[in-house]
């Protein structure tokens, strides 16, 4: 196999710099000892990280995001498992249409979904509630959970299940002891990808969240709209660090390249 020439390597270095520079700068500015946006040229300081603790709205928004992510990805996975099994195992009229429907939140712009949810929740008196927030997030993250669970459901050798049945296992036992373990990698990484997407979602959530149920990205977005200071940089730096940890775990569990193939989200 031919190697990359020096020009190619230079291009690659530039590209990786382009990808990482904005994140790097956020992390650097977060450590500034000054009271304004600047590089930490005169030593590093944690003052802006301590400052976060004095803004309870960031802390409470963080917990809203965590609970929202955990709850909505669990519901999304619970809905995605049977759907994935139906799509992967059976040929039935409407199969294609259902798959398209379940993947459709990827195609509908988040702004449009946000507006649709706001209108709908206002009519049924769910606007601004945590329940409404969870329901809307379930919809947006189902495609991510479904895709990964589908990928692991296609690979199952159904003879293993038949063997279990012929050995006297009931349908529930076969599902619990054979099917679930086989699709478990897909379920776990599907849950994690769903969680990350829920945790990062901002556009649709801006419409659905009320001041009491604001998530972390929405809080950050609203804060940046007013002013950009080292505080928001330190909040973002924490977020980047948290994501980096989850990224490494996901890479170990599932492999990053498989995780993203066919992805579509912004």
């Amino acid at each position, binding site marked *: 196999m031919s190697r990359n020439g020096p020009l*190619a390597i230079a291009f690659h270095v530039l590209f990786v710099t*382009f990808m990482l520079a904005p994140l790097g700068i956020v992390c650097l500015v977060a450590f500034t000892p000054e009271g304004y946006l600047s590089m930490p040229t005169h030593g590093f300081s944690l003052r802006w990280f301590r400052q976060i603790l004095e803004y309870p709205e960031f802390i409470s928004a963080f917990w809203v995001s965590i609970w929202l992510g955990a709850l909505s990805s669990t519901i999304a996975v619970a809905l995605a498992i049977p759907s994935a099994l139906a799509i992967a195992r059976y040929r039935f009229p409407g199969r294609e249409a259902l798959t398209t429907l*379940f993947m459709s939140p990827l195609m509908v712009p988040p702004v449009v979904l946000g507006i649709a949810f706001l209108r*709908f929740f206002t009519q049924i008196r769910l606007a601004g509630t945590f329940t409404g927030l969870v329901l809307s997030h379930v919809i947006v993250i189902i495609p991510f959970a479904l895709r990964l669970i589908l990928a692991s459901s296609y690979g199952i050798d159904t003879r293993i299940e038949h063997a279990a049945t012929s050995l006297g296992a009931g349908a529930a036992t076969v599902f619990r002891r054979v099917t679930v373990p086989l699709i478990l990698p897909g379920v776990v990484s599907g849950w994690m990808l769903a969680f990350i997407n829920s945790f990062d979602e901002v556009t649709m959530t801006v*419409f659905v969240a009320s001041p009491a149920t604001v998530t972390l990205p929405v809080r950050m977005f609203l804060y*940046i709209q007013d002013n950009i200071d080292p505080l928001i940089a330190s909040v973002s730096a924490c977020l980047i660090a948290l994501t980096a940890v989850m990224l490494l775990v996901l890479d170990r569990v599932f492999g990053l390249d498989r*995780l993203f193939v066919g992805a579509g989200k912004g």
Partner: protein
Amino acid sequence: MKERLKPTPYLLAGPTALVFLGLVLIPLAMTVLLSFYDWGQYKGIVPELTLKNWREMVADDYFYTVYMRTFRIAVLVTLASIVVGVPEAYILNRMSPVWRSVSLLAILGPLLVSVVARTLGWALLFGSTGVVNQGLMKIGLISSPLPFMFTETGVVVTLTHVLVPFMVLAVWAALQRLDPQVENAAGSLGASPWTAWRRVVLPQIIPGMLSGSVVVFALAASAFASPAIIGGRRLKVAATLAYDEFLNTLNWPLGAAVATLLLVALVAIIVGSNRLIERRYAQVFE
């Protein structure tokens, strides 16, 4: 023999289908309907069917400007992603596995970081008090800050950063299906590396490039947070305009019309180009 219709798949997928019916199809239908309702500063939303909002969008140049800007930005972001992403995918494909997985972490990792944090990074780099501008001014290369914030260029650069990983992925997937020996064969038959790339590699990765373009274009045209932060309140795109009508002006029917038009335009473009790609390159997908 005709196979009997089994109820199992319907029972399995049924709950999700019901959830989607109730939480996607009905709300979307209500939004489309809302775009035909009347609205007034004092009377609020009046549920009477009217074409007022749609007429306003056609008649007012402002909406035309915003939509043209939205699609101009999306086209530029798509082109930039091709120019930057295609060579990168090619380079990535020729790397040793170890370096490749490290590079993939760096390229795909940002996808998982909130778009708000990524956009903030660009604002910190290129804002008027940003690091790059301050640095360039200190060494005297420029006298006033480079215009980046509140410009279309700024929005395009930021969105390219946010979306180019999708292009890299799509092209890389196409490259993996390619036999590396074919390129070597072209070389041994006397083609220069550039000719081999242009005549042998490029034609085979065009489908990947096109499907990557559809994804990047759709996401760029519906982007919200980056244009809102970098573009500010004056440089509106379709998504930020709909947001404004909903949460600032409170003219929901007009906001719904703006959103509906965006949705319809995007679905038409996505479905249309997917059809085109599949028909034109059917043999490559087999």
